[in-house]
């Protein structure tokens, strides 16, 4: 029980709750429903992309191309809309294109055995480049209001933003898969030791391939939502989001080496980052200053557990030595 409480993801969940409470007491307008809506809209892209990213990092891989897939689908959405395609066709098409982009990542990584870090740095440049090829530096803005309005709108009386529904639904689905199904256990097994997982009958390559497909599809969906939220399709939409997502996932206690981490921790990590940013902005602190906090939290999220382990190890050794001396 004590060990469980002391783990990083429970610390981060406590910290998140603490920040939310303190911010709503101390910061004016933080607790208003208007601000809540803005906060949910701000954390939407990070939290959605973080779900498949958590799975991928738990298997010991990484996907840095997510923000570029987002940009590519946003660009394509604008281009297709300009070419008079119906929005009902465009949206599923964009998600499929995202999945195809993810499948290419997955094929290069699992089919050819290339390192995921290098592959997705490559496709980060490739997909963002293609986004610019599609739309150049122009923007498409005239999306139908019933779609853009839904994304920024709220349910009924106006305190719950619409996008919270897909966010919660997807978080629950990913959470159940990770923590309550054989697939989820397989992901941890792959991350802990891919070879051992392979010999115990887990289809390692196929699982990883599917993870990249899902990651691409979700990034495509987020590209659509992003475009509708700002009602602006641009090639540079979401640039740099991959860093925020990876930071949030690691902050949530997922090990970059794979095999460790939990979805509640990740969700807390995302909420913590977004809430801090939101509160500091309300206090007129520049968003860039928050970069220092984000970066420091990211490093500390790995550093502190390491220090605790080292100290505990030393302490145990000393006790062993003492009992041996007796």
């Amino acid at each position: 029980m004590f060990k469980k409480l002391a783990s990083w993801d429970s610390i981060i969940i406590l910290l998140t709750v603490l920040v939310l409470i303190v911010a709503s007491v101390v910061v004016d307008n933080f607790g208003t429903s208007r601000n809540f809506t803005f906060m949910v809209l701000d954390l939407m892209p990070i939290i959605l992309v973080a779900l498949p990213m958590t799975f991928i990092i738990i298997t010991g891989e990484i996907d840095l191309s997510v923000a570029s897939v987002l940009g590519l689908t946003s660009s394509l959405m604008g281009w297709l809309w300009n070419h008079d395609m119906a929005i009902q066709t465009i949206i599923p098409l964009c998600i499929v294109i995202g999945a195809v982009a993810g499948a290419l990542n997955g094929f290069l990584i699992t089919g050819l055995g290339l390192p995921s870090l290098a592959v997705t740095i490559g496709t980060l440049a490739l997909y963002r480049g293609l986004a610019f090829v599609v739309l150049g530096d122009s923007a498409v803005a005239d999306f139908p209001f019933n779609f853009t309005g839904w994304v920024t709108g709220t349910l009924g009386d106006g305190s719950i933003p619409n996008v919270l529904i897909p966010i919660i639904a997807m978080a629950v689905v990913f959470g159940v898969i990770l923590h309550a199904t054989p697939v989820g256990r397989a992901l941890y097994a792959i991350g802990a030791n891919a070879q051992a997982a392979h010999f115990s009958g887990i289809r390692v390559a196929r699982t990883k391939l599917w993870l990249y497909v899902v990651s691409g599809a979700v990034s495509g969906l987020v590209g659509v939502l992003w475009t509708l939220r700002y009602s602006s399709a641009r090639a540079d939409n979401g640039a740099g989001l991959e860093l925020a997502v990876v930071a949030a996932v690691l902050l949530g206690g997922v090990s970059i080496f794979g095999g460790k981490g939990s979805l509640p921790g990740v969700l807390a990590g995302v909420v913590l980052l977004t809430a801090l940013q939101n509160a500091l902005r309300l206090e007129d602190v520049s968003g860039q200053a928050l970069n220092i906090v984000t970066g420091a939290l990211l490093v500390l999220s790995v550093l502190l557990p390491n220090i605790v382990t080292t100290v505990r190890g030393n302490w145990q050794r000393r006790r062993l030595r003492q009992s041996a001396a007796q």
Partner: protein
Amino acid sequence: MTPLALQKPRKPTMNLLKTRELGILLALALLVLYTTINNPRFLSGQSIRDNLLNTAILAVMATGQAIVVITRNIDLSVGSVLGISAWTAATMMSDHQGLPMIVAILVGLAVGAVAGLLNGVLVRYGKVPALVVTLGTLYIYRGITYQWAGGSQVNADKLPAHFLNFANDSLLGIPWLVLIALLVVGGATLVMRNYRVGRELYAMGSSPQAAELAGIKVARNLLGAFVLSGALAGLAGVLFAARFGTVDASAGTGYELNVVAAVVVGGVAVFGGSGTVWGAGLGALLLTVISSALAVLDINQFWQQAIVGALIILAICADRLVAVRIARSLRKRDAHV
């Protein structure tokens, strides 16, 4: 194991590594040839000069990155280190107009070295993976620069003339910027190839555990690699400020991608232990020439990033092919023994 058996495996590796850099040279030659046929001005003195000047900053950073990647680490903070160093140098030179260029360079190196030292200490003694550390310090160093600079910027008219001229002045017809880049790439290549510490860095990248067991001073070398990468990014910051004249807090944002791209395209494997510094320098040159060739060929500039991405993937596919072939040939030979 006879000496002969020990000697044998080295030969194909050396040959293949040679072809790796030759491949980049070949691609470069073809690209230049094709572009020049389409537009002869591409090979004019001014165009070559521009290309080399544009390569210089990237090549300096790629040198440090290559060494870090060879040790099986990565330094994503270089763009932010460039930013903080460029801002430091620019504000210092605009406040103290009389300071000689060498002071700016030394200050840039020092700022970068401190930033790199922090990275190295966290990686080695904090046991935090380099990817996480440098992703964190990418944010931290950039945040510090923004805190310091706010929304302000240093313009060229506030900077002393000798500082700005440095980017255009030359020695024996070769611009200073290019000379510095050649010196850095050449020196690092030599050290990595022929000196003990260089070989130790390769050994660390091939197998970190074996290197430690073999008595290599892993901690010292690792810190050295990160300090060097930081210092070179700091130097690049000063060169950036001198070349562009206008500096704000966003200088060098996203450069880490170009630097890693240059290193990977140049044949340094992300799993460490192989590749050369001059290969990374060639990678930097290739990326720069591609972007200027696109402009000359009147191809949509927007294609540039997509081509860079495709090149990275092509490069790692090529590396994989070579690695598989080596593994197969080694296995075959072992089977005969």
